[in-house]
């Protein structure tokens, strides 16, 4: 199975007054897994459906290996899709669901069955062929849907939030399995999700969308560590907004001077965007902050601190380092010396935490 290059060129799609895609330009390299990430209504599902052929853009084009497929009917595209909600045909058993596309193409029954068995083996359900969808768990249904999507050996795999209806444990296991399959098959995969952790953990590339436009595309670490815009910084992961003052290419924040990366607003008074894990906290009786809350997260602890000037900020530190930082304790902190993003000064607000929302 070889992956195809998928290109979105100036894709625009409106629904009445709502602009779902506003000139989306994006290229997905062959054999890679790209996650389309963004808040609800950012257009990520619409973009995916344009590749599947279920939506037709008002302007722009979708290219598959350089060939314009924008007007190709959905049933003639070389793309397999797994849907968000369970979409197995309820009247067909697992074998027949997986072999549906082969049946439509009039492949002989014996071949269909052999291929279905092979795919069910691949997704870890070799003994479930005779069952009907309602006899399967949600995770099993999505595995079958994945097998069905791969049955015709498509060159592009489209995943429309396939894990969102599953419980946390199954979600993690299945996303790792999807990644393993994608790597072994080398199929170009577009994975729509609103879950940043999911996107960062499985994708080769993460594309962050906002209001139908591409904000940033890059490797997960790049998007996380070097967000191109304040929106990306705050949407991907958790971000503190600390008051700072611009001075040339540096910003003064919490008594430190940090280099600025990215664009700067016109005014010297800015908000400095700082990740919680770049806030280094130590217990200190004469420290400039007090611990308000401490939430245990397994390997790490997240502290909410309030500085003497009233600024609140989050800090993540290893659990074993947080033993002496109980709520009410005074603490000192400093920021890791690394480039930071700045944005226009907003009102004093608690740290921004990216929230997940369905697209």
């Amino acid at each position, binding site marked *: 199975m070889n992956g195809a290059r998928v290109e979105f060129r100036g894709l625009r799609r409106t629904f009445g007054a709502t602009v779902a895609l506003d000139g989306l330009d994006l290229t997905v390299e062959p054999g890679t897994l790209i996650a389309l990430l963004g808040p609800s209504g950012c257009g990520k599902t619409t973009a995916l459906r344009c590749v599947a052929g279920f939506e037709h853009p008002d302007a722009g084009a979708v290219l598959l290996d350089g060939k314009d497929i924008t007007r190709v009917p*959905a049933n003639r595209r070389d793309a397999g*899709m797994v849907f968000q909600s369970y*979409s197995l045909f309820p009247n067909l058993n697992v074998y027949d669901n997986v072999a549906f596309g082969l049946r439509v193409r009039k492949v002989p029954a014996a071949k269909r069955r052999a291929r279905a068995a092979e795919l069910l083996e691949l997704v870890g359900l070799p003994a479930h062929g005779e069952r009907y969808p309602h006899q399967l768990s949600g995770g099993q249904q999505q595995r079958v849907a994945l097998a069905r999507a791969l049955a015709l050996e498509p060159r592009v795999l489209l995943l429309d939030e396939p894990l969102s209806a599953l419980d946390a444990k199954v979600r993690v296991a299945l996303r790792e399995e999807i990644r393993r399959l994608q790597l072994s098959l080398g199929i170009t995969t577009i994975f729509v999700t609103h879950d940043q952790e999911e996107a960062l953990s499985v994708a080769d590339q993460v594309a962050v969308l906002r209001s139908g436009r591409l904000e940033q595309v890059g490797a997960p670490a790049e998007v996380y560590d070097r967000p191109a815009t304040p929106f990306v910084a705050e949407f991907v992961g958790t971000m503190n907004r600390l008051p700072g003052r611009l001075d040339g290419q540096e910003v003064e924040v919490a008594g430190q001077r940090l280099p600025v990366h990215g664009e700067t607003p016109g005014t010297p008074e800015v908000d400095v965007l700082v990740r919680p894990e770049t806030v280094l906290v130590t217990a200190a009786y004469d420290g400039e902050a007090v611990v308000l809350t401490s939430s245990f997260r397994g390997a790490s602890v997240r502290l909410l601190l309030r500085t003497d000037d009233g600024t609140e900020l989050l800090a993540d530190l290893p659990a074993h380092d947080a033993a002496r930082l109980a709520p009410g304790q005074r603490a000192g902190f400093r920021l890791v010396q690394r480039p930071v993003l700045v944005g226009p000064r907003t009102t004093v607000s608690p740290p921004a935490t990216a929230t997940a929302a369905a697209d």
Partner: protein
Amino acid sequence: MAETHPAAPAGLPVRTGGGNRPRSTGWTGALPLLAFVALAFGIPTVALLGGAFTADGAPSTANLTASLQGAYLTALIGSVKLSAVVAIGGAVAGTFLAQAVVTSRFRALREAVLTASGVLANFGGVPLAFAWTATLGNSGVLTTRLALGEHGWSLYSFWGLALVYLYFSVPLMVLVVVPALDGLRPQWREAAQNNGASAWQFWRYVGIPVLTPSLLGGVVLLFGGAFAAYATAAAMVGTVVPLVTLQIADALTGNVLIGHENVALALSFDMIMVAGLVMAVYLPLQRRSARWLR
């Protein structure tokens, strides 16, 4: 929980007569329904069977034999034919109409059609016969305006009656099948398309099989409705179209011959048998079509 009796081998559970097992009283909630069924269905059925198998005060199958001969048999066959035509025609037309409504972008149209269907499905009897007679009867508005009589049109015929029966059967089918069509998930169609299926292949392999239990139920409902209908036919066609319900009414009221009341009961028994036959065909089909639901 089973107890262990002191005299029994260790570990073996022994029933203690069930006296300490709480008895289920859940069925008592069904008592009013059971009483109603016994009154409204059980007693008439017993009376019907008693009368059908009694002639001159003695047990006999003479009434049953008579009900399956001559004009009575013709009427019975006529009713079955009419009901079959209405059931199949109504199911097909109703399903297409329902699909058009379900896929319409205009919510107001959907609501209007469903409301109209709710009203029209219950429009029957003499008012319905009058409405059709005034419109398409021999002197009906449309018959005279369009000179339909010159083209051989007659409402008072088998097909005329079938048309009138379809008038309430199609809306009934719409009401039955719309929830089933609503239950067809758009993702199934998209998944089928994604697997290379055309619209026809989607309906053939997924849509129709999923709908079949509901469609079969609708066909049986329409068949039953047409088979048991009386007042509209009585007001419209009289004896022109032979129907078993008209024959029963004539025999009960002594309209043509007196003393045939028990033949009427035998005809009713025939109707029960026909309904039973229909169910005997329907149930295995329904079970087969719905095996994926179990």
